[in-house]
C-alpha cells in the first residue's frame, strides 16, 4: 500500500482539488452538451489526450529537474512528416520508425548540449529548436502534408483492443485505440522510473539544487542529457502516432502542443522552481486540461476565445504553483516556531 501511495505521489489535498476540478468540468460540459459523457466522446478525449499526455511525461521530468522544453510541438510535426515521407519513398514502416526515433533523440541531444555546453537557459535553447525544427518540417515536405498509404503505418491508429462487439447494440464498445494504450504504458513506466529508481531520485536532486547534487556525487549534465533525449524520443513516437491518425504527416499541426503539456504539468503540482511534483499529478492535470479543451469545442466556444481560456488556465496553474510554494514555506516556518 505504501508503495502504491508513493508511486502516485501520495494523494494529498492538491490532488483532491484536481479531482474535484475534473468532476466539475465533466459535470459542467455534460449539462451543456449531453454528448460529452458518452463512450465515443470519452474515447475521443482519450485519443486527443494521448499526445498531450506523452509530451507532459517528458515535461514532468524536465520541469522537476528545473528545465523546460518548448520544442515538442515542432518535433511532433517533424517526426510525422519524416516518417510519412520515408514510408512514401518505399522504406518499410519499422525502419522508418527507427530513423524517426533517432531524429527525435538528436533534437533532444541538441537541446541538452545548448543548455549544458553554451549554458543557454532551457527556455531560450528550446525556443531555438522550436523554430528550426518547425522550419525543417516544412522544408522536408515543401509545406504540403504527406499522405500515408502504407497499411502497417495506418494500422497504428486503427488498432484497438480489447474489442467487445455486441451485435445487438448500437453503442458497441469497440476497444481502446493503441495511442491510448501507449500513453497508459508510458505513464506507468515513466511514473515508476521517476518514483522508484536511481535516475528518478537524481532528477529531484538536480532540480532541487544542481550544485549540491553535483557535490553529492551526481552528474547533472548527464542526467539532463538523458531527460532531453528521452523527451525527443517521446515526441517522435507521438508524431508517428499522430500522423497515422491523420493519415498524413502534417507540418503545420500541433503548434502550442507544449503549451497544453506544460499547463497540465503545473496544474498537476510540479513546481516551476524545480524539485517538486509527481507523475500522478501530471496524469490528473492532463485529464483536466484535455476535457477542458474538448468541452470548450463541444459547447461551440469560438477558437479565438479558446486561446484566451487556455492562457487563463495556465495563469491559474502558475498562480496555484505560487500559492503552494508560499504555503510550503509558511508550513516550514510554523514548524520551526513550534519546535523552538
Amino acid at each position, binding site marked *: 500500500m505504501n*508503495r502504491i501511495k508513493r508511486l502516485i505521489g501520495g494523494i494529498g489535498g492538491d490532488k483532491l482539488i484536481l479531482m474535484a476540478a475534473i468532476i466539475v468540468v465533466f459535470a459542467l460540459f455534460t449539462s451543456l452538451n449531453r454528448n460529452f459523457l458518452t463512450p465515443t466522446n470519452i474515447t475521443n478525449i482519450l485519443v486527443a489526450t494521448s499526445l498531450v499526455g506523452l509530451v507532459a511525461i517528458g515535461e514532468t521530468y524536465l520541469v522537476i529537474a528545473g528545465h523546460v522544453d518548448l520544442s515538442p510541438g515542432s518535433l511532433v510535426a517533424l517526426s510525422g512528416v519524416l516518417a510519412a515521407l520515408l514510408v512514401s519513398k518505399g522504406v518499410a514502416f519499422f525502419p522508418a520508425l527507427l530513423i524517426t526515433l533517432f531524429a527525435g533523440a538528436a533534437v533532444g541531444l541538441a537541446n541538452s548540449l545548448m543548455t549544458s555546453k553554451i549554458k543557454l537557459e532551457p527556455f531560450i535553447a528550446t525556443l531555438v529548436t522550436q523554430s528550426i525544427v518547425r522550419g525543417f518540417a516544412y522544408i522536408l515536405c515543401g509545406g504540403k502534408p504527406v499522405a500515408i498509404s502504407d497499411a502497417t503505418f495506418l494500422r497504428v491508429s486503427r488498432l484497438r483492443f480489447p474489442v467487445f462487439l455486441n451485435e445487438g447494440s448500437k453503442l458497441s464498445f469497440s476497444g481502446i485505440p493503441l495511442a491510448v494504450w501507449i500513453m497508459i504504458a508510458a505513464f506507468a513506466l515513466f511514473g515508476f*522510473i521517476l518514483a*522508484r*529508481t*536511481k*535516475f528518478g*531520485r*537524481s532528477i*529531484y*536532486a538536480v*532540480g*532541487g*539544487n544542481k*550544485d*549540491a*547534487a*553535483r*557535490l*553529492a*556525487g*551526481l*552528474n547533472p549534465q548527464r542526467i539532463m542529457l538523458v531527460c532531453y533525449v528521452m523527451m525527443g524520443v517521446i515526441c517522435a513516437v507521438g508524431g508517428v502516432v499522430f500522423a497515422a491518425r491523420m493519415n498524413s504527416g502534417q507540418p503545420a499541426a500541433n503548434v502550442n502542443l507544449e503549451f497544453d503539456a506544460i499547463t497540465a504539468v503545473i496544474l498537476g503540482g510540479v513546481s516551476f522552481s*524545480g*524539485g*517538486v511534483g509527481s507523475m500522478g499529478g501530471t496524469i490528473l492535470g492532463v485529464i483536466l486540461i484535455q476535457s477542458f479543451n474538448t468541452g470548450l469545442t463541444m459547447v461551440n466556444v469560438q477558437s479565438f476565445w479558446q486561446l484566451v481560456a487556455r492562457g487563463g488556465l495556465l495563469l491559474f496553474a502558475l498562480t496555484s504553483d505560487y500559492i503552494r510554494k508560499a504555503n510550503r*514555506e509558511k508550513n*516550514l*516556518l510554523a*514548524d*520551526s*516556531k513550534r*519546535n*523552538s
Partner: protein
Amino acid sequence: MRDVLEFQAISKYFPGVKALDDISFEAYGGEVLAFLGENGAGKSTLLKILNGDYQPDGGKYLINGKEAHFRSPHEAISAGVSVIYQERQILMELSVAENIYLGRMPANRLGVINTRKANAMASGIISDFGLPIKPSDKVKDLSVAYQQMVEIMKAYSRDELKVICFDEPTASLSDSEIGILFGIIRKLRDEGKIIIYVSHRMSEIREIADRVAIFKDGRFVGAEDAKTSSEAGLIRKMVGRDLGDIYDSLDRDKEIGAVLLEARHISSDYVEDVSFSLHRGEVLGFSGLVGAGRTEVMRAIVGADKIKSGEVLLDGKPISNRSPKDAMASGIVLVPEDRKTQGILANLDVSGNINIALMDQHSNRLGVLDSDKESRAVEKGIKDFSIKTPSPFKKIVELSGGNQQKCVVARVMATNPKVLILDEPTKGIDVGAKSEFYQMICRFAKEGLGVILVSSELPEVIGLSDRIIVMKGRRMAGEVMRSDATEDRLLALSMMEADERISKEACA
C-alpha cells in the same frame, strides 16, 4: 539630548531555527557599541532587521522613543539608518561623487545633473574625512579600504544619519587601513552618531568600542564595558562556557600514520601552486581569511573545479578527479562550505539526503531502488551520527542547522572514504552541536581517516588540528605545527606580506 535606539523583544524565525529570541537592549548616540557573538548568534540578522531587509516576527525597535518600522533598506536609509557591509554595495564604474550622491545628484529643473556641484560637495566630505582621493576618481580604481570609505561617506552625506552599523568592516583591510577606519569611526562617534560595530576580533573591539553587546544562539546575553571587562569573561559569556574545556575534553589519543593524500603544486582558476600532504589519522587545518582560496583548494581536489597543473596522489598513486563523483569513488569526500546552497538537498527528506551518494549500492541492475536497503542505511546514519529527527521521511529543511549538517556528514561517510574534507563544518550551528562535531572529527581521525578541516574560527582550527596550513591570496602562506599555533601567528600569516611579517618578528 543623546540619540537612542531601543530594541524591544525582537524575535525572528527561519526554517529550522529561531534566529532571534526576545532581544531587548539600547544603543546610545556618541558611543560605539560592539556586537560580539559566534557565527549564527544572530548579529547579522539583527542588523538586517534594523535596516529593513528582514521583518521581525515579534517585537519592535524605536529611535528616540518613536517606533520605527522599515520595510526596505531604502526606507531605513531615508530615516537615517545605514549599514556598511563587508561586501561592497557601491557601483564600481561610477565616480566617488556619483556614488556618494547616488539617486540624489544635484540637478537643475530639467533633470540635468550638475557634476561640478556634486564634486564640490563631495570634496567637502572627503576633506572632512582626510582622505587622499578625488571626487572624480572611479571607484574601481580605489583600494578596497577606500571603496569602503566611499560607502561610509555615502551614509555620512545624509543629514538625517543617526545610526551607522559596520558588519565586520576590517575583514579585508590592512593594519594601516584599519587605523584610518577607526579614525573615522571616532569622528562619527564624537559627532553623536549611534555606532554599531560587529566583529570577531577581540583586540579591535577593545580598541574601538565603548560597550559590548553579547549574543549567543539568538539571545542577548548582556552588555559589558569594553575597556574594563576581561577578555576571558567576554568569551565565556559568548560561548556559554570556557572554550578551553571543549577542546581539552577531546580524545586525541591516536596514531598518525603514513602519507595518505598528497597535493603537488596544484593550480586551478582560483588557486596557485598549492602543495601539502595529509597523513592517516591526521587532522590538517586550513586557515586564512575568507577568499584566501581555502575552499577553492578543496574544490580542486575533489574535482569540482578543474586542476590546470600539478597532481594529486592518494596512497602514493596519482589520481585524476574530474568530478566530485570520481573523487568519491576514489575515497575523497567533501562536506561543502555552504550547507544551504551546496550541502543539503532541500527538497528531499532525510532519507533522500543521506542515501543520495549510495544509490548505486541500493539499486539493482535496472536502477530500481530497494527501499529496505535505503531505510536500513538511513536508520544507521541517524543512529551513528545521533541525528535528531522525528522520522527518516522528515524534510531535511525542517531540522536544525546542526542536524542538517550531520545528515551531510552521514551521507559522505556512508561511502567509506579515506579522506574527509570538512569546509566550515560548524558555521551557523549551536555550541552543543559544535562540540559533537569536534568529537566526531577526533573519532574519524582515530579510526585512521585523513581529515582536512577548513575553518575561519581560529580557536577551532587550533584546537582540533595536528598541523595547520595558512592560505593567503590564493597561495599557501605557511604551515604551522599544533604546538606552535597561536591566534596571533595564524592571523599574521594570513594577513601580512612576507617581508612585513619578517621585520615584525625581527623586532619582537
